[in-house]
């Protein structure tokens, strides 16, 4: 290894500038998938958590407890199976049973369900950590169950959930780069194509740089939130 090779192959300004427009197009796709999955996954996770807690609150009727089983199964399965495996199954296996989803939406669906599984766990733990007296107080003031959840419990739970949630959300959002495996024209896919075209790995390094620029502020933010809450 010498410095000239390092410069020519890894940090070549010619290829950097040449491939940057394509890479930025790819970056946009990556951001789109990430943003959609984040929004949907977050919401779905919250809904699942509220349903699960509500079932527990109504716990005197054992028939309701059965409803929890699918949620627990959903959450555990999605947390145990590697995201790449889930993605490949959604894109390559589902068409065999006549469920065909375009690449982009297959990626969004995959990361949404994975995110929702992690978010559900975190939301449920924090909602349960809120003193039950809060719900009782809200209920005695005349709020319905859903109202007391939405305006009393969830805002408080949200504050505790934020640091673990951010760090998990970032981890899953990073997995969005797996979409290139099923052929989505995201940042990584564009970088690999450019690398083969020019026989020079500079685009791959540029992609690494763009990914880092995208996620570094988020990583810092999650560390900041964690620190602030623990003080």
């Amino acid at each position, binding site marked *: 290894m010498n410095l000239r090779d390092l410069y020519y192959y890894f940090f070549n300004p010619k290829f950097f500038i040449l491939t940057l427009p394509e890479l930025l197009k790819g970056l946009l796709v990556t951001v789109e998938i990430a943003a959609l999955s984040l929004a949907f996954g977050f919401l779905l996770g919250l809904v699942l958590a509220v349903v699960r807690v509500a079932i527990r609150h109504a716990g005197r009727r054992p028939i309701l407890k059965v409803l929890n089983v699918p949620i627990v199964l959903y959450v555990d399965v999605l947390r*145990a*199976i590697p995201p*790449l495996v889930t993605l490949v199954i959604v894109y*390559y296996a589902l068409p*065999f*049973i006549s469920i065909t989803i375009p690449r982009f939406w297959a990626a969004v669906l995959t990361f949404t369900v994975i995110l929702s599984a992690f978010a559900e766990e975190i939301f449920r733990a924090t909602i349960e950590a809120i003193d039950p007296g809060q719900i009782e107080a809200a209920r005695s003031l005349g709020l319905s169950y859903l109202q007391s959840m939405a305006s009393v419990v969830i805002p408080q739970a949200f504050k505790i959930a934020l640091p673990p949630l951010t760090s998990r959300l970032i981890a899953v959002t990073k997995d969005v780069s797996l979409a290139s495996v099923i052929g989505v024209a995201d940042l990584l896919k564009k970088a690999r194509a450019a*690398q083969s075209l020019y026989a020079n*790995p500079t685009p*791959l390094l540029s992609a690494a740089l763009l990914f880092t620029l995208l996620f570094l502020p988020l*990583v810092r933010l999650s560390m900041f939130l964690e620190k602030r809450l623990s003080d």
Partner: protein
Amino acid sequence: MESLIYNFFNLEVILKVRYLLWLGLQVTLKLSFLSLFLAILLGLVLAVLRHLRLPLLNALIIVYVDLFRALPTIVLFMLVYFAWPYIGIALPRYWAAVVSLTINGGAYFEEIFRAGIESIDKGQTEAARTLGLNFLQTMLSVILPQALRVVLAPATSNSLELIKTTVLASVIALPELMKQAEQAHGSMASPTPLVMAAIIFLVMLWPLVWLAGYLERKLAQ
């Protein structure tokens, strides 16, 4: 329903591909254990070094940790396997995967161990040093055993994540479980091998998911 069973749980296909999947599983297990061991070791060493509070060294460690927590692991795999050869570092697939997983996992484990070490009262270090123990002795026999309690839950969950990440080695064509399943999926024209791979991961990792949750609840009390 019939189509579901025929496509996803086809017994004939399972019998044909079971040996390939078994070969893949062996690679996955070897890769998981070696990378996990090296990543924990790297994280631990860096966390202990960070406790020395040498400004330049700490700055380097922080850059390393931040960088690899921000960089998606699949990009790291590709850099190591496809880009490094251009500058004369050509690693075989297996070692490219081990190196990627270790570099990536080490960053996360460093943060976990650092948080654990920092959670121990400073007076402990001072007391141990006053008793004549040197830095390493203090770490090994006073700080780390106590930090273990704080570290256990996040370390378990991170180990789970690392093992899940080994499937990325399929992207650089290492014949681990996922790659074998993909190839069998192609040659058999049936998604059963993919479903089998998912089930194998599920059976392997579910106990770890459960354990991570259990430790979190138990140690939070």
